[in-house]
């Protein structure tokens, strides 16, 4: 007798169909019109064959960034995140048997706190764009004002996600413009738009154009009553000032570049930090330091009265499953790099972008960088050929070009956003420069 039959017999059933006796006939289906299951070998073969049709950044130098970045991932990070005990665990509801995950996430929160200069950090949001949506609604919880000012210089995907998060609470999203010469924010325009109903100002450092905006440090003193939300690239924070040190109430950002591959855009890692005074208005799971029954140090999920399973429709957010494993990757990544490694990596990115921007700027008819400013690892160029067409030409030469900007910032029709990191050798950069020359 098989186990299945034994179990059915114990239940007093003859046939497993009896397990579904409570499903009325009118809603029954006749099985699934899917192919018969495959063996593991066949699954692997079939999917590898299909996936082989992708061109990867390994074989083709890729100059795309704009929120998802190609950085080197130390092998040890992969070792750590592929540990079964992290990979196949559920949310650490039972703290006593989940101390490993809880501590790793606490360490992630600690790293982000140090980088952003803000004491309260959650254990992740889905990605940068949803973190922005949550930050906007949180600023409304802080000061109950509905207007949020965001840069026109921002990815259109982020704008769209923000619009959806703002829909429910009826926030008013308004864009402020940028200085066409420096790519920094237009302070006069921002001053015109801040009024008594403005609850939040969002700024990115570096911004969508890769520009390190020198106005960032004066925003809080200029607009003391408005919640300041700063979008960051955590790697740049190895050498750039922490947003908390210039008055940010909330810092958000993308954390994928901290040890998670590009993965065609997912999973990513939404970074979310805030001042300690705002912690009970924050969305998402948080890990707190505590003690066990013997007074020894321990960790657990905490402040759960903000969350959906307790507060239901009054929760600060519906988020529960997040990107915990990516947060562990970030923690491992930052630990491997260490203080000196992160500082050095940040500077290398500044330096590599400067090299490439300068070389492209030397080509006749290309304007590079288009904005006269300090750039992190991205910069905008103006191209004499339509950016979409240019990308097709680059692809023929085995290069994945940059991001055409028309969809994102309407005025930038002949412009392209290029990203370069430590992943590009001098030869990779020189190949791009040569291909651009030939494109003319």
């Amino acid at each position, binding site marked *: 007798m098989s186990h299945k039959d034994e179990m059915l017999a114990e*239940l007093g059933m003859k046939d497993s169909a009896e397990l579904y006796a409570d*499903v009325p006939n*009118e809603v029954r289906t006749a099985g*699934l*019109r*899917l192919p018969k299951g*495959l063996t593991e070998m066949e*699954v692997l073969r079939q999917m*590898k064959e299909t*996936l082989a*049709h992708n061109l990867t950044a390994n074989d083709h130098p890729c100059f795309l960034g704009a929120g*998802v970045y190609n950085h080197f991932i130390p092998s*040890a990070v992969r070792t750590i995140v592929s540990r*079964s*005990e992290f*990979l*196949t*665990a559920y949310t*650490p509801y*039972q*703290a*006593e048997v989940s101390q490993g995950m809880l501590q790793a*996430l*606490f360490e992630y929160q600690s790293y982000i706190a*140090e980088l952003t200069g803000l*004491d309260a950090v959650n254990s992740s949001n889905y990605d940068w764009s*949803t973190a922005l949506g949550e930050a906007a609604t949180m600023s409304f919880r802080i000061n109950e004002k509905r207007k949020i000012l965001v840069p026109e210089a921002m990815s259109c*995907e982020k704008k769209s*996600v923000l619009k959806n998060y703002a*829909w429910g609470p009826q926030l008013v999203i308004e864009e402020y413009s940028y200085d066409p010469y420096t790519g920094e924010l237009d302070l006069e325009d921002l001053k015109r738009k801040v009024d008594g109903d403005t609850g939040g100002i969002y700024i990115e450092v570096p911004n969508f154009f890769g520009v390190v905006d*020198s106005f960032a440090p004066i925003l809080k003193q200029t607009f003391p009553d408005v919640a300041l939300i700063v979008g960051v690239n955590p790697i740049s924070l190895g*050498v750039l000032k922490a947003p908390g040190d210039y008055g940010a109430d909330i810092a958000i950002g993308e954390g994928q570049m901290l040890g998670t591959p590009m993965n*065609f*855009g*997912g*999973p990513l890692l939404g970074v979310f930090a805030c001042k300690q005074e705002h*912690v009970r208005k924050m969305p998402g799971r948080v890990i*707190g330091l*505590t*003690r*066990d*029954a*013997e007074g*020894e*140090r321990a960790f657990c999920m905490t402040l759960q009265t903000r969350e959906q399973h307790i507060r239901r*429709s009054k929760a600060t957010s519906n*988020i*529960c*499953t*997040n990107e*915990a494993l990516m947060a562990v990757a970030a*923690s491992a990544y930052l*630990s491997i790099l*260490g*203080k*000196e490694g*992160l500082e050095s990596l940040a*500077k290398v990115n*500044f330096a590599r972008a400067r090299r490439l921007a300068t070389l492209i700027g030397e080509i006749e008819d290309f304007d590079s960088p288009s904005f006269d400013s300090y750039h992190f690892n991205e910069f905008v160029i103006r191209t004499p050929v339509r950016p979409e067409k240019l990308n097709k030409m680059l692809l023929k030469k085995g290069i994945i070009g940059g991001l055409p900007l028309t969809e994102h910032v309407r005025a930038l029709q002949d412009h392209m956003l290029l990203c370069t990191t*430590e992943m590009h050798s001098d030869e990779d950069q020189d190949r791009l420069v040569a291909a651009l020359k030939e494109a003319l």
Partner: protein
Amino acid sequence: MYRQARYDRRVIMEKDGRTSFELPFAHEASSLEDFAPKELVRKELDLPSLPEREVVKHYVNLSQMNYSIDNGMYPLGSCTMKYNPKYADVLATLPSVQDIHPYQDEETVQGALRILFELERALCEISGMDAVTLHPAAGAHGEFTGMLLAKAYHAKSKEERTEVIVPDSAHGTNPASAAMAGFQVIEIPSGSDGCVDLEALRAAVSEKTAAFMITNPNTLGIFESQIREIAQIVHDAGALLYYDGANLNAVMGWTSPGAMDFDIVHFNLHKTFATPHGGGGPGAGPVGVRERLVPFLPVPRIVERNGHYRLDYDRPDSIGKVRASHGNFAVLVRAYAYILKHGSGLKEVSERAVLNSNYLKHKLQDAYALPFKELRKHEFVVSAKELKEKKGIRALDVGKRLLDYGFHAPTIYFPSLVDEALMIEPTETETKETLDAFAEVMNKIALEEDPEVVKSAPHNAAVKRVDEVYAAKEAILSWRAYKKKMQQT
């Protein structure tokens, strides 16, 4: 007996050394001056520095202080913690998955688009829906997306529908997601059988109702047999019926949300389709809809013509984006591999999950009260009420004592309509032997002579019972905050 490893409790910020990490171009960095506006240059960076050897030791030791499905049974109700097959990991870590950028030209990512397209089709077949978006990053995110779709749908037909109804047994995410989308949430009480009370539903629906959100089987593991009547009531009121897919593992191939007349469905790929949960994420929460809601789905849609895949942004009624890019691609790849592996046999997956659940319920019903006696689907809820009255042992204590025996605890105190609830979902991947062993331990705990042993459990985990009250009171969420607190005292 189970004993969990335990290493020193220092956080990595307390450890000392020197990094062994090296980068090419480091010389460019050291000679770089004037790289950013002066007022934005950081003066101090208080991060640890350790050689790789120490970092790996630190995290591998931490991992050994963490329970996972690879260690043992994880009967968390409504979480569907089934075994995560390893072929999916192999595929998800291929360079052709990891090293592609979401903004790449569609010509360069045909393989990825094909997999996403085929996964959408498979999920349509499983759910009986007409189209699926793979964008949402998690189940709750799928619910939020579904609520936005409902909102856009009603707005298009110029209808002012401001309310969403949920049963009191609903997952907390349902009311939270509806509220985030700006709906007013109305909870209706369950009937005495634990199912939707049709009269309460009839009384609650009106021309203001945008949607009714339920899961079927419900959170007690009971199949809502009157689902067609429910659909009728909801649709007659002009509202939409939303399927919370958290419990889909019970019914694949036997029925479908489409056959039950639902309009919007979300899936939890990290539950039903066996993708690893990563200690809390990543997940993936695709959303399926009926034809009339298709125009509102997020952009881009993947369209196929003669084996060629293209991204279509030209969708004027679309709600736009709910997150950047195309969804949690690496998770989606895993889920598709799982679907290929099982194919039409997913029906047997569900059947086995239901068999395991009913078998385990049968094994536990002498020692624990089983409210609502009917047949269950993939999960069931027992009550520790009697233990609490007789010995002062609560559901929480039973859960903690289970840890000592190497089992994860069930979901506790949910759904709230059962006192001292223990919500148990064994899934199809546990053997009869494991189920028997689990039942034996559960029954042993109920009979334990000294209740203090149970009330002070766990004894064999890395730490003793954790003080959650202290954690909430102090709210120390980072090492930086901890150091400040220490300085103050």
